[in-house]
């Protein structure tokens, strides 16, 4: 009998001050069980202080084929970077 529990993506905050980072996925019947399983599967060696679980079907991802359209335009906007602007040597630390 087919009885797949839904897939959840797991995110861990390794310590306060850092954001949660994706570490992998697991199966669980509900969110509470997903947290419990994530604790056992992904934090056996003090990897984190906080967990997020998100059911995978709720994540919308950009398509790899759109990558150029989405991200390529940023490549030639060098004026968005501080090094684009020339300052005299006398001005230090800006």
């Amino acid at each position, binding site marked *: 009998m*087919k*009885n*797949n*529990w839904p897939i959840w993506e797991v995110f861990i905050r390794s310590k306060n001050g850092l954001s949660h980072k994706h570490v*992998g996925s*697991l199966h669980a*019947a*509900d969110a509470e069980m997903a947290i419990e399983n994530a604790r056992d599967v992904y934090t056996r060696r003090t990897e984190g202080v906080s967990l997020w679980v998100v059911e995978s079907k709720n994540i919308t991802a950009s*398509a790899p084929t759109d990558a150029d359209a989405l991200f390529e335009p940023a490549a030639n906007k060098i004026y968005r970077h501080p090094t684009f602007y020339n300052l005299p040597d006398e001005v230090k630390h800006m």
Partner: protein
Amino acid sequence: MPVEGSNKTDNQDFMKIFDARIERDEKVEPKDWMPDAYRKTLIRQISQHAHSEVIGMQPEGNWILRAPSLRRKVALLAKVQDEAGHGLYLYSAAETLGIERDELYQQLLDGKAKYSSIFNYPTLTWADMGAVGWLVDGAAIMNQVMLTRTSYGPYARAMVRICKEESFHQRQGYEILLHLVKGSEAQKDMAQDALNRWWWPSLMMFGPTDSESTHSEQSMAWKIKRKSNDELRQAFVDATVPQAEVLGLTIPDPDLKWNEERGHYDFGPIDWDEFWQVVKGDGPCNRERMAHYTKAYEEGAWVREAAMAYAEKKQKRREAAKSDLQVA
């Protein structure tokens, strides 16, 4: 992404992009286009690897209740729990390729998917816990360190986590043997006996010799594998011989000797008949391992179903409470 009915020219373009990405040593990620054969090879290899971790719990689980001290017991428990975790990281990586977990389990249950043959050998004495950690995990580490650089992103990331955890496994096994060889004559004999039985099967873990290995060449081209079976086997022998010397144990191979010219140890011929016999299902424990796995799977079915039913019931109650609130 190419979909069904997309024309051949499109696929050729995607193939070029894919090849160039592999050439640049850039990782392939789940939603990227990849050739069907690359996807299939990865599903086969990653799931086989996951099944090995899961079945691999059995020979060691065999000794948890008989560990000689609390220190040994907590270490062995932690190690076996890690193997379960490693299986789960790997199933998770395999699922990113578009296969469902149930299907992966079913392939193992049906005997369509294999697991590492090493786990079809029995763990007869406590010294086997030492030999398994030292040799079996040692051989696995050789392979897994290489796989941290594999071309498929999720597989590489799972391997990084696994390698971090695996080195404790090898050290705890080696420490077991270190203690036995310093013990009574009978304990030293037990350690030697374990090495005698596990040495050759450990060398077989790297798979058939390069000229006989069916998948190797393509896997190397796709950078799924970075080193050949024979290269890895040689690296394992070179690393392990000095460790056996520290233990004062003798590796059961009369042909084993240092080759100055090659800068490697030469070793005797592997019994490939035995290898194929175990792969094909006639090793000492194949039937026992699968019977145990199948029993656990079947006996756990009601738990999986009940958990899902309970989750659905809770969900319905939450929704009902919400609509009651709206009515009020």
